[in-house]
């Protein structure tokens, strides 16, 4: 276990930055946190959630696939993916870290998504335990422990120090390169922090939320529930929930005609959109209700069915804050998941 005085954090960031690009949550002008590349003077924000989740590092909103260059009647294919070299991310929360696992199941299973894979391999993740989880946090529901955030290097903080505990070889290697900025420390202070956090989690308003009634092979049980009508009636069909969600993974592949060629890229898509998976015969889910249902069924039933019962929600609470009409997965779980949830 290593530690560093909070006021000296910049030294650590500087040291890491010498080795590799470093990204960390920074408060932007709208007073929201977003991941930004560290440069001299960039302040780390203790804000719990960034607006955009950490999935952007591995699955960015848009990504070049290749170019087709035309000249006259000729066409040539040019590789142009912009994959990053090694990089480190500091301040990833437990929920977002778990979301990588959700994405891995999709992108790293055959056929492997090489872009995603390269990015994952090139990253060192510093997590940060959540000292002050918010009322919208429910990672606990999905067996995620905000006091035990994992990652390549797991970090904890108290008033004065940030504690760093490398867990993987990648994490150890990077920390070894920056030891001069760090002091050694025992497990004790972190144990205290963990205990405090665990106590706090129990007092969260959504602590008792349970997704137990959902899971693998429950399609028939939930698909035709009449409550979907009511839950979806106010949905505007925008993509906010999917775009702030750390586990939403759908994308579209599009071509942009530049005038002298075509840029093929992929970009996030949203199952909430009316043109999602539109085919020659139209979009299979013709109503917003069906699209709405798809999103939650996927998180709570379809994904678990295909991934050994693992849910594809990590309880980060972003959608609770960002949905324009405040409809969200908690309301869905409560409505459909039985009385246990109040």
């Amino acid at each position, binding site marked *: 276990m290593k530690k560093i005085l909070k006021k000296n954090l910049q030294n650590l960031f500087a040291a890491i930055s010498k080795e590799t690009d470093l990204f960390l949550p920074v408060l*932007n*002008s*709208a*007073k*929201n946190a*977003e991941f930004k590349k560290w440069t001299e003077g960039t302040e780390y924000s*203790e*804000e719990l959630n960034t*607006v*955009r989740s950490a999935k952007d590092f591995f699955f960015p*909103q*848009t990504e070049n696939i290749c170019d087709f260059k035309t000249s006259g009647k000729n066409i040539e294919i040019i590789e142009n993916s912009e994959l990053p070299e090694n990089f480190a991310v500091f301040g990833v929360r437990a929920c977002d870290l778990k979301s990588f696992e959700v994405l891995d199941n999709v992108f790293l299973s055959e056929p492997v998504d090489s872009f995603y894979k390269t990015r994952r391999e090139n990253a060192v993740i510093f997590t940060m335990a959540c000292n*002050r*989880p*918010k*009322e*919208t*946090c429910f990672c606990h529901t999905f067996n995620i422990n905000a006091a035990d955030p994992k990652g390549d290097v797991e970090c904890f903080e108290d008033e004065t120090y940030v504690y760093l505990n490398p867990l993987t070889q990648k994490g150890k290697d990077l920390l070894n390169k920056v030891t001069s900025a760090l002091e050694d420390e025992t497990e004790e202070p972190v144990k205290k922090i963990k205990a405090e956090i665990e106590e*706090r989690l129990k*007092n*969260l*308003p*959504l602590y008792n939320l349970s997704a137990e009634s959902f899971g693998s092979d429950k399609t028939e049980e939930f698909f035709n529930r009449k409550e979907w009508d*009511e839950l979806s*009636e*106010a949905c*505007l*069909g*925008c*993509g*906010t929930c*999917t*775009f*702030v969600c750390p586990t939403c993974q759908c994308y*579209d592949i*599009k071509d*942009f005609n530049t005038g002298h060629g075509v840029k093929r*890229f992929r*970009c*996030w*898509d*949203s199952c909430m*959109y*009316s*043109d999602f998976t539109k085919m020659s015969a139209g979009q299979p889910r013709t109503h917003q209700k069906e699209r709405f249902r798809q999103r939650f069924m996927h998180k709570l039933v379809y994904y678990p069915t295909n991934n050994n019962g693992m849910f594809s929600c990590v309880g980060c609470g972003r959608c*609770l*804050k*960002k949905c*324009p*009409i*405040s*409809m*969200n997965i*908690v*309301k869905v779980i*409560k409505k459909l998941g039985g009385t246990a949830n109040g």
Partner: protein
Amino acid sequence: MQTVTRNQLVEKAKELLNNGTVTRVLGIKKGEFSYDLTPAVFTSAEELEKEFEFNGFAAANFSKYLVKLADGEGKILVFLKPCDSYSFNQLLTEHRFNRENVYAVGIECDGFADYKKIEEEFNDGIKSVEFNGEKIEVTTLYDGKKELAFADYMLERCKNCKTKKIAAFDELLTENSDETKNTRFEEVEKLEAMTPDERYAFWRNELSRCIRCNACRDVCPACTCEKCVFNNPDSGVENKAIQNSFEENMFHIIRAFHVAGRCTDCGECSRVCPQHIPLHLLNRKFIKDINSFYGEYQAGAEVGNRAPLVNYTKEDIEPKDAVGRGSEE
């Protein structure tokens, strides 16, 4: 703090359901917390009693829902705040729903709270928010109770409320007021006073946060197109995600232009933007320009008004004289 109470609305809704005036009520449903309110349709007194909510966070503009809901069976009751009422008229002007299927009850409005601003105040979770006269009582998870002045934590649009006059209703639940305020262009004026470089930097900073989630568009009561140009591969501007600064500008310029003269300045776009981009400053620029070039115009003030962009006079200002005029005033 709203003077209209939840109970007043529930009673009115029940009365109109019971006497058969309406079969459905468009209202707001309680959430997990005080702020996560969801628009909903109620069809019985029991539902209303159990789930209807109206508090200092009930800011949603109902009018857009009528495009979808006014087609249903029987009349639907809608409560129109001043903001909603202008959207309501504008949608009627554009034939977007059938007026006969709607029963509109006008309610006065004293402004709504901005949850984001309250949240910013604490590095903390927020357990509950109570509205008490001019005060907001916030109970946080870790630091106990805090008291805030309501006036400081209002939504931007409410702080600069353009008018408290309800422009459309079948019945008024409260008094109609003529109170208007003229502060809403101050931010636009500040921007106009900047140099082009400063303005460019300002907008780059704001618009670069856009994630093209379409929340602004999909909540906008003026954006009710059957198919938006940005979803239409044939339009030449279709895109699903923003790839660079051009596309950020493009989306927001075109969207603002498409609603120019039709936008009632209800402020929903800025309210719902997950990235807190001050989108209203785009729409208000158009409104300010329209007012100064072609005379005061409030979209939705009356049904049937001719929007400034589908109108003209022979003496209109020339583009070369119009550009930059705001900053010289």
